[in-house]
């Protein structure tokens, strides 16, 4: 698509819920945003900061009150683009129970392609590929009711993959999961991003999930207030605290050590990275 390497663009995006602009509640007040193709972006921010509203714009579930959103060059306000946008930008929601339509896993995964009017043989192929891609191929005939939260979310991701999207937008997919389920989902996303080059927009409250992202975007009161690589974002400990956000433990430790004069690299954000960094420090000259 015209050599544009941008997957998603939001320009001066404003969204107001309610009857009209004056009496409604403004959820987004002028968001400018660009997400590159193949990028893995995490959006963080407190409740009510507009993250979910933004996510719904990327799939044309909501339309701008003013400003515009482009998904792979397609303007969401143009009704002719609607279905192609929804196919291109797949959505995964928070509650794994409330996004499964069918009583059998493979039929749920088939739901999207069926809506697109794809031929049965090809749907069959896509469903089996998608389930394999999320590691759920052994559960194709299972009932969603008997799956764990993490497994359900992986099926939801497969359901989106079966539509061959270019970007997947996930609205707090891990909020209702236990640590094991969260890990399953995060590993799946990282793999899809790396191996299939799918752009990922991951909204989360768990800061530790954001440390591996290519970029972290912080939202506060309907605006993007910070955007940059995790090392940069998580070094702004005071700002993050002001916005009601956590800073990962390792980033805070690094901060404290640097304040005491130890030259700990800012790029150490996980336990493993920090251990390596400390060992390097203790043995270097």
């Amino acid at each position, binding site marked *: 698509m015209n050599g544009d390497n941008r997957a998603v663009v939001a320009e001066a995006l404003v969204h107001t819920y309610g009857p009209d602009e004056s009496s409604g509640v403004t959820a987004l007040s002028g968001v400018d945003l660009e997400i590159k193709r193949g990028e893995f972006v995490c959006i963080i921010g407190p409740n009510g900061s507009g993250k979910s509203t933004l996510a719904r714009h990327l799939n044309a579930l909501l339309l701008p009150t003013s400003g515009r959103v482009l998904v792979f060059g397609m303007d969401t306000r143009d009704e002719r683009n609607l279905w192609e946008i*929804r196919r291109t930008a*797949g*959505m995964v*929601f928070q509650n794994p*129970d*409330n996004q499964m339509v*069918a*009583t059998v896993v493979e*039929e749920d995964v088939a739901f999207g392609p069926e809506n697109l009017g794809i031929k049965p043989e090809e749907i069959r192929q896509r469903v089996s590929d998608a389930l394999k891609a999320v590691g759920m191929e052994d559960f194709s005939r299972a009932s969603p009711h008997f799956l764990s939260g993490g497994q359900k979310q992986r099926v939801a991701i497969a359901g989106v993959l079966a*539509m061959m999207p270019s970007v997947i937008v996930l609205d707090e997919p891990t909020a209702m999961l236990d640590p094991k389920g969260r890990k399953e989902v995060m590993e799946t996303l990282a793999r899809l991003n790396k191996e299939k080059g799918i752009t990922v927009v991951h909204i989360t409250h768990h800061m530790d999930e954001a440390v591996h992202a290519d970029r972290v975007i912080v939202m506060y009161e309907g605006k993007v207030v910070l955007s940059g690589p995790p090392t940069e974002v998580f070094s702004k400990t005071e700002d993050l605290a002001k916005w009601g956000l956590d800073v990962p433990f390792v980033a805070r430790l690094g901060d404290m050590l640097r304040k005491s004069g130890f030259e700990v690299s800012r790029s150490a954000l996980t336990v493993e990275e920090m251990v390596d960094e400390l060992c390097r420090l203790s043995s270097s000259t």
Partner: protein
Amino acid sequence: MIRGVIIGQYYPVRSTVHSMDPRAKILIATIFMVVLFVGNNFYCFLAMGLFAVLAVVLSKVPWHVVIRTVRPMLFILIFTLVLHLFLTPGPVLFRMGPVTATWSGLVQGLFIGTRLVILIMFTSLLTLTTSPVELTDGLEDVLRPFSRLGVPHHELAMMMTIALRFIPTLLEEADRIMKAQMARGADFQSGNMLNRARNLAPLLVPLFVSAFRRADELALAMEARCYRGGEGRTRMKKLEMHRADYVGILLVVLASVLVVYLRIKFGPVIRGTV
């Protein structure tokens, strides 16, 4: 309990009947029901009964399971029998106080009762050998010709699927909310009927709120996955009729012809009735 009625009915074994196309099964069951009401004497029922027995044997569903399906209807069955026994005029069988049982009543009661038993067993066989999912798919297809008459075949099937999907979830949720209210001292067990009904508010209000929220989120998720009604939609699973299906339909048609013949040949079980 509810779960047992709706989902537990399916008896999962491999058999010719299980692997048949749900559409063929629905068609056969429908024809069978109509023909059952065409039959007006015991010869007809003998033919239908044999057909039903053949179906049960082929389905590999154990007899006790099939017979169990009649149990909930037992009361109605006995009621029908007694009603006919005492209310049909004819030669006296015996007297009980002010009421009189007649021979014709006995025959008529047995006749209607037999019809009911065959009916229940045969239709149960449909749900015993067809999973709810297949049944839904089958119904969607079978109802398709009626869409021109305004029957929303796709929507009906989609509703059934979603209901099946969410029944276990909502049952679990009801259990959880009930316990949460009991933890706050709520009492769902004691008191008279009126009080008990009133005491259900703490259970029903949250359950409805939650069901509506789920419906809302599900609708959004479906839309996000390009759902726009039945138009232009394909299905991964194509239903295909095989030889067994055609043979089944052929058999039920033959049985129908036989029943019509028997009806003409032997006439009604009691002169003057249908």
